[in-house]
């Protein structure tokens, strides 16, 4: 099949070419999509390539940090904000992080044999919002709502979060391999006085999940109230259920120490 490449040179043009997303394959950095094409699981007809759409910058806009969907993970890994930087450094290797994008990390659907999108946990903990377009036009929503919705019909434009002094903790289990997704990743943020606790967990199912029960109780074992881990090629659900409370406990302990 002949692929038609759409090459928008602005975010508005990208949104207009995307329309409602029907029949359009979004191409970010290619790190997820190209193996799918090589394996014959994806057969794009119209490919919306975003590398010239001007969505590739991370900027500090007053009290907000705004991250374009095409910002490479390598930029996050070197960013001064340690919550995202440390999470980004655990994804792929340096070469993959130069190609892989923030938008692709949160927008790509889970694969049959593994979940994707380890930035979900820290972005939930940061209280991030996602600006996307699609049917009904542009909208901004909390990342946990975006993740829980129908991502297939949305084109992510930007991710943003508010800047204020935070304490954070992070814990995770992963294999040291550039192409292996994590077994479980936990990120925890709170204001300097300990209030406004937010906890995100990823690597445990099709999307990252916000753990409201632990936010209320501050008891690590309550992570399993919100999280129902899956069996996949990376780890068993039983193993994830066993280690998650420990990981959440570690992340909460770090929060207390910082």
């Amino acid at each position, binding site marked *: 099949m002949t692929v038609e490449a759409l090459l928008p040179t602005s975010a508005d043009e990208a949104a207009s070419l995307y329309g409602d997303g029907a029949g359009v394959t979004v191409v970010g950095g290619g790190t997820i999509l*190209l193996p799918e094409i090589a394996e014959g699981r994806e057969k794009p007809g119209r490919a919306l390539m975003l590398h010239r759409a001007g969505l590739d910058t991370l900027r500090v806009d007053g009290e907000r940090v705004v991250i374009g969907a095409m910002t490479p993970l390598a930029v996050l890994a070197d960013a001064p904000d340690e919550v995202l930087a440390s999470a980004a450094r655990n994804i792929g290797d340096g070469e993959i992080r130069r190609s892989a994008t923030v938008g692709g990390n949160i927008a790509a659907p889970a694969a049959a044999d593994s979940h994707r999108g380890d930035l979900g946990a820290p972005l939930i903990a940061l209280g991030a919002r996602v600006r996307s377009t699609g049917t009904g036009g542009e909208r901004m929503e909390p990342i946990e709502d975006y993740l829980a919705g129908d991502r297939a019909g949305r084109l992510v434009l930007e991710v943003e979060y508010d800047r204020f002094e935070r304490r954070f903790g992070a814990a995770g289990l992963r294999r040291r*391999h550039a192409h292996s997704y994590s077994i479980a990743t936990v990120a925890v943020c709170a204001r300097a006085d300990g209030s406004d606790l937010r906890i995100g967990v990823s690597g445990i199912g099709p999307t990252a999940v916000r753990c409201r029960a632990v936010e209320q109780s501050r008891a690590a074992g309550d992570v399993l109230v919100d999280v129902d881990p899956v069996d996949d090629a990376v780890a068993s659900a039983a193993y994830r259920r066993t280690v998650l409370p420990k990981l959440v406990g570690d992340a909460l302990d770090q929060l207390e120490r910082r």
Partner: protein
Amino acid sequence: MKLIVNGMEVAVVSPPLTPLLHVLRDELDITSPKAGCQQGGCGACSVLVDGEPRRSCLTPVAAVDGASITTVEGLGDRETLSPVQAAFHNHYAAQCGFCTPGMVIAATALIDRAGGPVARDEVIEALGGHYCRCTGYVKIVDAVMAASRGEVEPIEDVPVSVEGEPEVQPKGSPA
């Protein structure tokens, strides 16, 4: 589309989502980048895109339209190996050789960026996505560190091509 491959501008006619790897190998006959796993997991296909190492199997060619691509073919030649290539030769850092082009590309980028001696853990981080199925990692890391310190000995046993002989000859056992 066009690419500047090893300093030469070339027109590309492959479809836009063709991996850069296959454009280089199949359209342009540049075969140092290897099609290993083709999922980004092995590093055998890495090339420099505007000086930065990237997996060519994960890079749609249209996304790097106009970019400068460097493969091992653009680093040195038979008589004048690049410092990293010479260090790999000196330290017996290539066994079967399949991972070597990707390793050399990643090491070259690391040393260019550092501009001086690099530590063992920096090499391990930079080469962390590159698999050597012969498990020759110790000699590879030694070679990269030596190259970063400028410790490159002259190459005296590079095989000379003879008319009618294969272009590439086995170097023989280090013993």
